[in-house]
């Protein structure tokens, strides 16, 4: 099994779009679960959606959580606190840029890499060439 990926965003469309882009590079080999928007569909984060996404992506290899903005960290940490410590230790909250990190994480996860490797790959999203270097 491949490391799972969870996308936490304040916008449902954004979360789904990131997942759609990342899935293109992982061809169904990686579970990419999304938690976007509030329960009533407005812009914000939802504890229940984050918990559900973590459960959907849960697997023995671990899960990398990518976030859009800093404030999404808090709801994600609350979700983690509701899990068993044994589950929690297989989950890393990424500091990578959301879109770029998710695409690189999906590539790395689909190659069967470890959680630590997937987390490191996501952080390479900072150096993803755009503009002059592309």
């Amino acid at each position, binding site marked *: 099994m491949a490391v799972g990926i969870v996308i936490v965003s304040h916008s449902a469309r954004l979360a789904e779009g990131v997942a759609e882009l990342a899935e293109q590079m992982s061809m169904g080999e990686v579970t990419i679960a999304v938690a976007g928007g509030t*329960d009533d569909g407005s*812009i*914000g*984060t939802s*504890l229940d959606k984050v918990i559900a996404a973590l459960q959907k992506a849960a697997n023995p290899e671990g899960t990398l959580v990518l976030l859009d*903005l800093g*404030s999404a960290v*808090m709801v994600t940490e*609350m979700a983690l606190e509701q899990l068993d410590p044994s589950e929690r230790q297989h989950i890393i909250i990424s500091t990578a840029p959301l879109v770029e990190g998710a695409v690189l994480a999906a590539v790395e996860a689909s190659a069967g890499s470890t959680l630590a490797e997937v987390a490191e790959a996501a952080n390479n999203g900072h150096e993803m060439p755009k503009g002059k270097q592309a």
Partner: protein
Amino acid sequence: MPVTHEDILHWLQQSAQVLHEYSAFLTQLDSAIGDADHGINMDRGFTAVNAKLTGLSDADIGTMLKTVGTTLVSTVGGASGPLYGTAFLRAGMVSSGKQSLETSDLITLFDAALEGVKVRGKAQAGEKTMLDALIPAIEAGKQAAANQLSIAQVLQNMTAAAEAGMKNTIEMVATKGRASYLGERSVGHQDPGATSCWLILQAFSDTMTPDAAHE
């Protein structure tokens, strides 16, 4: 006179009402340095809290506050959800089984709430957040308690200190939350979260000072 179970109920109802009334104001403050939703968030959260309160008339204070916490976390949708949510959850934990609170219980409760906000938001005093209302409020509360003032007076002093702290956020540079994206430009604007914190404390104080309510 200790704070009773009914007082807590009344405080929470009063908070819901005040946050509803001030919703547009809080959102306006958030529009200057955030995403214009703090009033909407707090109103939505406390409306949900209010709806739960009727089912809690038999619960102890700890259970009530924990329910407030979980309700806020699941309904608010913004940073203030996990922050106030954790505050009420921690306050509920240290009030477990209690049907009334003495001054010392109240200080314990607020210390736990403060610790919760700090753990959750990893912020400290001076970062232009709700902490800048809450921290001076608790300091004033401890001072008042040390001076053997009544619970009503303790809460009045806390509210006054929260209000002063809230006003001090105007001159601060935000370094946590969305307002930090503005950097120096956040100066000159009052923090929405510090403002809602003051309103919630004022609701508590009003509850315990019946004559002065809506003075």
